[in-house]
């Protein structure tokens, strides 16, 4: 009788709990928001209540638009565009700081990426609808303007000055800068989030129920939505932030007289870098670092110096070559899962 008194409510409670579980389990656990900025799609999955998600996303998109207004080489109204047009122009604190960070990275990566390549990238026109192989003389003239030593960031007079004919192209860094800004917004709240910005990804905080974040790595030989491997991360704390960025020759290319030209230009030759690699994906603790490193690693190739860079930045990488072979750095081997058997490991003895 006493047993019955306990069992009855217990059974009913169990059943009710199952019901509740079903109800809560089916509610969408995140809010998805999309905006268009910097010529890319910005998408955020925010694991937050609707009003918080709206507020956070509004601030995130605002930061990206602000970064674009400062740094865009294609928007004639931006501060960088003004510098490029006039050779010298006023620039606010954000632009000067961001450009300084980019210059420092270019130095640290031995000039493998160069933010003063603007005149060269403009000639190729990859940012336009009509990219073309430049005339050799014009290319050499543009290449002569490239060099960090001719760039001056003048904090006293709040101006940026470039060398004669020199142009700044923040292309390899802009999305990274924007993702760092987005991180700063997310850090003011403590809601987990996954942010995608034009192929770069920011993972923030801990996923619910001890789950992992998973990121598909684009299949360089497939379509826009195809991936050949997954990276899984199980953060130890709510303070976690991981930035993933990919540079691939498949992103932008054109064919002229039977030759295919891709958009990743070498600052040494001013031409698309010749390499066996088709993509490099970098996982790093910072957005700008991840963005710049993926380009630098692609240009420099898989070699001890590239691996040293990654190590110095606390970064890891996945390299893919034209023979569908991949190389994963040691620190990422546990996170990496191959999902397409057509890819095989690369024979590289680091």
């Amino acid at each position, binding site marked *: 009788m006493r047993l*019955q008194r306990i069992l009855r409510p217990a059974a009913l409670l169990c059943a009710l709990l199952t*019901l509740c579980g079903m*109800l809560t389990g089916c509610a969408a656990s995140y809010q998805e928001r999309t905006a268009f900025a910097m010529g890319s799609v910005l998408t955020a999955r925010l694991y937050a209540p609707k009003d918080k998600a709206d507020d956070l996303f509004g601030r995130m998109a605002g930061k990206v638009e602000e970064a674009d207004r400062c740094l865009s080489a294609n928007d004639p109204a931006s501060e960088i565009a003004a510098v490029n047009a006039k050779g010298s122009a006023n620039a606010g604190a954000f632009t000067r700081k961001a450009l300084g960070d980019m210059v420092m990275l270019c130095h640290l990566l031995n000039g493998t990426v160069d933010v003063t390549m603007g005149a060269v990238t403009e000639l190729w026109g990859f940012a336009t609808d009509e990219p073309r192989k430049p005339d050799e003389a014009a290319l050499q003239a543009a290449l002569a303007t490239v060099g960090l030593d001719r760039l001056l960031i003048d904090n006293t007079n709040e101006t940026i000055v470039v060398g004669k004919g020199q142009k700044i192209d923040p292309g390899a860094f802009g999305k990274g800068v924007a993702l760092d800004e987005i991180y700063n917004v997310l850090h003011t709240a403590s809601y987990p989030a996954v942010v995608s910005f034009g192929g770069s990804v920011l993972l923030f905080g801990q996923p619910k129920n001890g789950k992992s974040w998973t990121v598909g790595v684009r299949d360089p030989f497939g379509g826009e939505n195809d991936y050949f491997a997954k990276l899984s991360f199980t953060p130890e704390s709510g303070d976690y932030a991981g930035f993933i960025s990919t540079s691939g020759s498949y992103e932008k290319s054109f064919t002229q007289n039977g030759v295919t030209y891709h958009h990743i230009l070498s600052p040494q030759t001013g031409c698309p870098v010749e390499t066996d690699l088709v993509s490099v994906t970098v996982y790093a603790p910072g957005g700008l670092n991840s963005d710049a490193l993926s380009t630098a690693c692609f240009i420099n190739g898989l070699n001890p110096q590239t691996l040293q860079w990654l190590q110095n930045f606390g970064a890891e990488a996945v390299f893919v070559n034209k023979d569908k072979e991949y190389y994963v750095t040691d620190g990422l081997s546990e996170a990496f899962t191959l999902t397409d058997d057509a890819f095989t490991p690369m024979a590289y003895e680091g």
Partner: protein
Amino acid sequence: MKDKAGRFLRPADLIAVAAILLLAGALWLLTNSRQGETAEIVCDREVLYTIRLSEVKEPYEIRLENGITVAVEPGAVFFASSDCANQLCVRTGRLTRVGQSAACLPHKTLIRVTGRDKTAPDALTG
């Protein structure tokens, strides 16, 4: 007369428990089918259309004001045409699985497939 209080559970209780569990099961089935692939058409920041792809019986087209036509088929969605210069959106092709998306940047338009799929990654890099 039997002493009902002597049993662990009365038949009425069993029925109640069974009813609640049945309800839970039905809800689970219902929500899971509802969570099947859903196509979303986003313009600028606004979700203009939400389409349950499993409920699409006949193919049809949605003409947007910005010159884009989105095709909807049973289980698939794609950019049928756009008056943009690069046509990247049209070339992306059919979207059928959760997590897939295609964008027309000149027109600030995105289509994507959302829903529950444990195998789908949270994001794509590339």
